[in-house]
């Protein structure tokens, strides 16, 4: 299921990466220059639509598993009046009524719930829904969270629109610090070459465009496909074998299958018994527990390490 979530959500095109980078730079400009107060530059969502001034949205429909989770983490959980059927975390979110799909949701059903804010997954096929909702006077913020910077930005954006900026800043800060601790601890270890298996047919890996690639880097590994800009690029088996990964990471079910699959038997990592299963609950999606995820990966890649 987590692999499926990857498949559906963690795709970053170069255009989005540039938009995200631009937004990050803007955000960086805001947060680093606190000596001379500058007018806050307009926040922009991942469709390039500017987000209005800080509000306190009270009736939020979130059609994106990550944003739903973030909202609950910020303490805005009771304000979430509708979610998509993919939004399963945290457990409390499951009592929120399902209002549609994350891709091409039913605009009617959304409007009938009278939200004042709708959070959409920023993919091409949601543009029409976003346009229709905006035309109907509902605030829409479309977000795509592929990399760690996107996550930070998303948390801050959600803080901005819920009036919980302080909580948002604190959350981002805490996540960054826990990541920094792991990064620091694993800075000097020898880095194995890691391949993260996402899908088998076609063969897909985690690429540089995904937060998971960044986590691996933080956890003391080296993603063999880090140079690919997409979050989950399609790769060829031959190419993978040529890159000689020393470790293969996958979800538990997949890992078990790979260990016994005839096609994979010749791959070095399989031969040497280094097919490792990560905890999908923790690692498969970006959340406030990113720091824990990084720790878990670090322990997986470097067993016996002592982490602060």
């Amino acid at each position, binding site marked *: 299921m987590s692999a499926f979530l990857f498949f559906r959500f963690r795709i970053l095109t170069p255009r989005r990466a540039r938009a995200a980078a631009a937004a990050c730079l803007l955000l960086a400009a805001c947060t680093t220059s606190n000596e001379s107060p500058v007018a806050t530059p307009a926040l922009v969502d991942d469709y390039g639509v500017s987000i209005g001034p800080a509000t306190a949205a009270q009736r939020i429909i979130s059609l994106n598993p990550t944003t739903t989770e973030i909202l609950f983490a910020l303490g805005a959980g009771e304000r979430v009046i509708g979610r998509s059927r993919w939004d399963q975390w945290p457990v409390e979110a499951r009592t929120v009524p399902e209002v549609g*799909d994350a891709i091409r*949701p*039913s605009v*009617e059903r959304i409007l009938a719930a009278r939200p004042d804010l709708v959070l959409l997954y920023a993919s091409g096929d949601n543009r029409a829904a976003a346009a229709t909702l905006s035309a109907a006077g509902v605030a829409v913020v479309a977000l795509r969270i592929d990399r760690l910077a996107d996550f930070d930005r998303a948390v801050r954006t959600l803080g901005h629109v819920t009036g919980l900026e302080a909580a948002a800043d604190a959350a981002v800060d805490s996540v960054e610090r826990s990541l920094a601790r792991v990064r620091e601890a694993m800075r000097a270890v020898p880095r194995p070459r890691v391949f993260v298996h996402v899908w088998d047919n076609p063969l897909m890996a985690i690429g540089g465009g995904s937060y998971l690639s960044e986590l691996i880097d933080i956890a003391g590994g080296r993603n063999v496909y880090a140079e690919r800009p997409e979050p989950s690029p399609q790769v060829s088996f031959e190419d993978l074998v040529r890159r000689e990964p020393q470790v293969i990471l996958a979800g538990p079910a997949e890992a078990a299958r790979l260990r016994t699959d005839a096609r994979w038997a010749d791959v070095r990592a399989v031969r040497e018994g280094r097919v490792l299963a990560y905890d999908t609950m923790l690692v498969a999606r970006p959340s406030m527990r990113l720091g824990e995820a990084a720790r878990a990966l670090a322990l997986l890649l470097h067993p016996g390490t002592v982490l602060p």
Partner: protein
Amino acid sequence: MRRPPWVALALVLVAVMAASLMLGATHVAPGAVWDALVGQGSDDVARTIVRSIRLPRVVLAMLVGAALGVSGSVLQGTLRNGLAEPYLLGVSGGAAVGAVLAVAGGVSAPSLIALAAFGGALLAVAGVLTLARAAGGASDTRVLLMAGVVMGAFANAAIMVVMAAGSPDVARNALWWMMGSVAAAGWRDVVLLAISLGAVGAALLHRARWLDVLALGEDAAESLGVDAGRAGWRFFVLASLLAATTVAVAGLVGFVGLMVPHLARSLSAARARPTMIVSALAGGALVVAADLVARTVRAPAELPLGAVTALLGVPFFLWRLRVER
């Protein structure tokens, strides 16, 4: 049997459209629908739902169905074949290639994708007609059908290549587009299709008697004074243009253009002009009904429109088989 049941057809269409305005992911009572349409009433949300979302959608669905019905009846008459349908001459393949290339190229604005689809469809139709002419049989049914099949196969191959090389996002977006939908209907789409249907429809109705004569066969048509070749071309181009416009605004909605003319013909004693008009009315009603089903059966999720019309195709063909026997 002589005169088509005009009143009954019109009533069915109106009834289906009214039902479509009332039902959906949320139900709006008839009174509220009326209030919303005439601009009274205090329920803002109902008004938005009815006027901004359902009304353009229902009108667009009706126009799409009407256009496909007319296009199908004209093509079946021109090609003298009850299995001809609006997408036959390369419209679906070309449009799909255009849309998929646009999506793969990073375009996400629906109007640009529509434009790419329309352009692709036109190019493909031009290709098919040129291919048929080069093979020496521009007015020969079989040559045209083969050229259409060839173009379709080529288009499918191109689509597969583009989707395989692209990201899953591209594949999903392209696939949804190809399955047809009026969910993103806006008034601009409605106006565009209305103008297209009006203009092309008028041109087709004007020359409808050519179809009656063409249906007798080329030799007979020529002996009655109809230039079969020229008439054929005119009908192909006009019918394909109409189909291409529907594809641009609603993606691929199959089976309507194939099924509806059969029903229309049996109600109109196979006369071309009434057949066209009945096809328009019946096609409109069918697509509005299909759209209603598509968005209520698994609400709030939506089924693709093309899937619902395709599902309707199965019992249709079974019925036709029995009738033919």
